[in-house]
């Protein structure tokens, strides 16, 4: 479990060895989590155990419904969240696991939520796209463009309450074409709120490439329209993200107002599991895997003096955390059906 002491804040610097280790281990947890889900998700969804005539049944198995995984996008989550405290707010997207893990959402309860179990974050009511952890100040939504306004509101609350906490809105490059993006950036710029807007540019809004959806090269450019500094990070590198986010979070925390950061990142899997990806050739995806940011960061760890035994230990610890979370979820009970009628109001 990530703790505050595991990620000391030193905003303007290169990551410390401790921060590098935290980022690496968190990336491992995320990757392991998502790759485990690739297989778990398929359980019970394939012939012959489904309705005759179907090739795949989205509503079957232990984890039914849509599933959007973030393998490849770990650098964005860890590079930003390395600078955050428990009292900082993160609002994620429909593809939320990497953000939640990096923000410190407990893996057991999160995984149980994905299984629809009574031990889940929301006792099974929310599911994978709708994770809510009040204690760790994390939430997300299945609606595109839904992260920027509430993060702006969290920043407004912090300012009104005289706290030095900040808020982060993560969103994809596709969602930056929603009206909410532009309205929230204007509010944040106008009111000089402690919020950081972080665009994950994985190049694809489901099947639509950024070149066919966005009139500017980088959403960082759009900050200028709202008086907000924009930083464009053209590589899927957690250290580059770390440095840019460090400056942005420090600016926000010290009353300097919002920042927008766009990170070029890679979605190694389909938009959702089961996506045939007719819109991009397999070779393109293979090339993305060649540039996997995890082994790249491992090399940097070695250069920083971490030996292979130390790296292996991180891998083992990450695997155990993930395995334990899945075991917990599987062995947990389902909620009683009538619980469906609770919690409309409190």
């Amino acid at each position, binding site marked *: 479990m990530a703790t505050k002491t595991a990620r000391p804040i030193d905003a303007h610097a290169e990551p410390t060895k401790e921060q590098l280790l935290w980022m690496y281990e968190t990336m491992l947890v995320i990757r392991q989590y998502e790759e485990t889900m690739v297989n778990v998700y398929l359980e019970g969804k394939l012939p012959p155990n489904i309705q005759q005539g179907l090739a795949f049944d*989205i509503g079957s198995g232990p984890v039914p419904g849509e599933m959007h995984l973030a393998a490849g996008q770990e650098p964005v989550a860890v590079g930003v969240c390395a600078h955050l405290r428990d009292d900082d707010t993160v609002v994620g997207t429909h593809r939320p696991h990497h953000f939640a893990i990096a923000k410190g959402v407990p893996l057991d309860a999160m995984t149980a939520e994905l299984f629809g179990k009574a031990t889940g974050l929301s006792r*099974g009511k929310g*599911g994978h796209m709708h994770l809510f952890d009040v204690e760790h100040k994390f939430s997300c939504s299945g*609606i595109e463009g839904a992260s920027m306004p509430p993060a702006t509101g969290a920043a407004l609350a912090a300012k009104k309450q005289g706290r030095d906490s900040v808020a982060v809105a993560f969103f994809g490059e596709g969602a930056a074409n929603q009206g909410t993006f532009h309205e929230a950036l204007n509010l944040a710029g106008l009111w000089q709120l402690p919020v950081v807007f972080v665009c994950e540019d994985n190049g694809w*809004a489901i099947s639509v490439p950024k070149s066919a*959806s966005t009139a500017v090269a980088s959403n960082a450019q759009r900050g200028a329209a709202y008086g907000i500094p924009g930083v464009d990070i053209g590589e899927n590198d957690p250290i580059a993200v770390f440095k840019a986010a460090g400056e942005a979070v420090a600016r926000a925390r010290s009353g300097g107002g919002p920042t927008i950061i766009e990170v070029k990142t890679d979605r190694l899997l389909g938009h959702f599991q089961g996506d045939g990806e007719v819109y991009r050739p397999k070779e393109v995806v293979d090339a993305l895997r060649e540039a996997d940011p995890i082994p790249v960061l491992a090399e940097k760890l070695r250069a920083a003096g971490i030996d292979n035994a130390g790296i292996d230990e991180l891998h083992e610890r990450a695997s155990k955390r993930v395995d334990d979370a899945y075991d917990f979820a599987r062995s947990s009970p*389902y909620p009683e*059906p009538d619980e*469906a*009628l609770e919690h409309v109001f409190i």
Partner: protein
Amino acid sequence: MAVAVGTRSLTMAKAISEAIAQEMERDERVFVMGEDIGQYGGIFGATEGLLGQFGPERVMDTPISEAGFIGAATGAAAEGMRPIVELMFVDFFGVCMDSIYNHLAKNTYMSGGNVRLPVVLTMAVGGGYNDAAQHSQCLWATFAHVPGLKVVVPSNAYDAKGLMTEAIRDDNPVVFMFHKGIMGLPWMGYFEGATVAVPEEQYTIPFGQANVVREGSDVTIVTLSQMVQKAAVAAEELARDGIDAEIVDLRTLVPLDTETVLESVRKTRRLLVADEDYLSFGLSGEIAALVGENLDSITLRSPIRRIAVPDVPIPYSRPLEQRVIPQVESITDAVRALVATSLS
């Protein structure tokens, strides 16, 4: 239902895309806009093949900007085009409801009938596959509630093709809602009754004509969309118990075929409304009120009953979702209870 003998069986998704393609061939003013409707063919297959046939000038993938492109459809329609525009899930209406509710629905009226808006707004509806509260709603009553939108909700491929052709030719805004669970997708559980014979040639089904899909004498089940297929399964089970159910498929909510509903209830003297939208302030209340307002010509044997989503958001977890979305068993249980209850 008049189906030509020997015609092909089509999924509802293919029937919809065929209707659009044939109308695009006939009328060059028709074009299609939406997210992932080009190469992907629509997330639920409603525009499959159109990009290859008509090219990117007439089959336009859009950015994720629903307020923008649905508003643009309204503007293009006012200038003589006939856009078909897809909102991927009805649940995404929140980001673009001003374009729909305050402009698409009202500009014709506010202009004294001078502005013509031949827009077809398609959208996927419905749950049952654990996609939770923001991807599983039906919400047809929300669209039927505001004056100015015709609302079409087919239950099978034959109706879908005829109703889509009618929708494109209509000079008014039409909301065309297809339930994911009857589109015939290879990746989602389905009801066989929705994939039926569909003529190759063009045809239209007029709006405001409900379809009695099963005649019966003991109870009228008024329903729509996927619930028609659930009701058909339920009716067969009830028949084994000697209960003869009549099923009325509304097919369009606006305009609503009140006569077919009233005639059926006059005959069976019992009414169950089976809906997959929220219970309160919606379709089931509307149908119940319709019958209530006509009790001078109807003699009920039992109180009116309604089944629908019991005023909670759709939960994710399977046992919770199945609890709130009416199932085949919900219909059989409700009908049995209805038949067993007399008016005092």
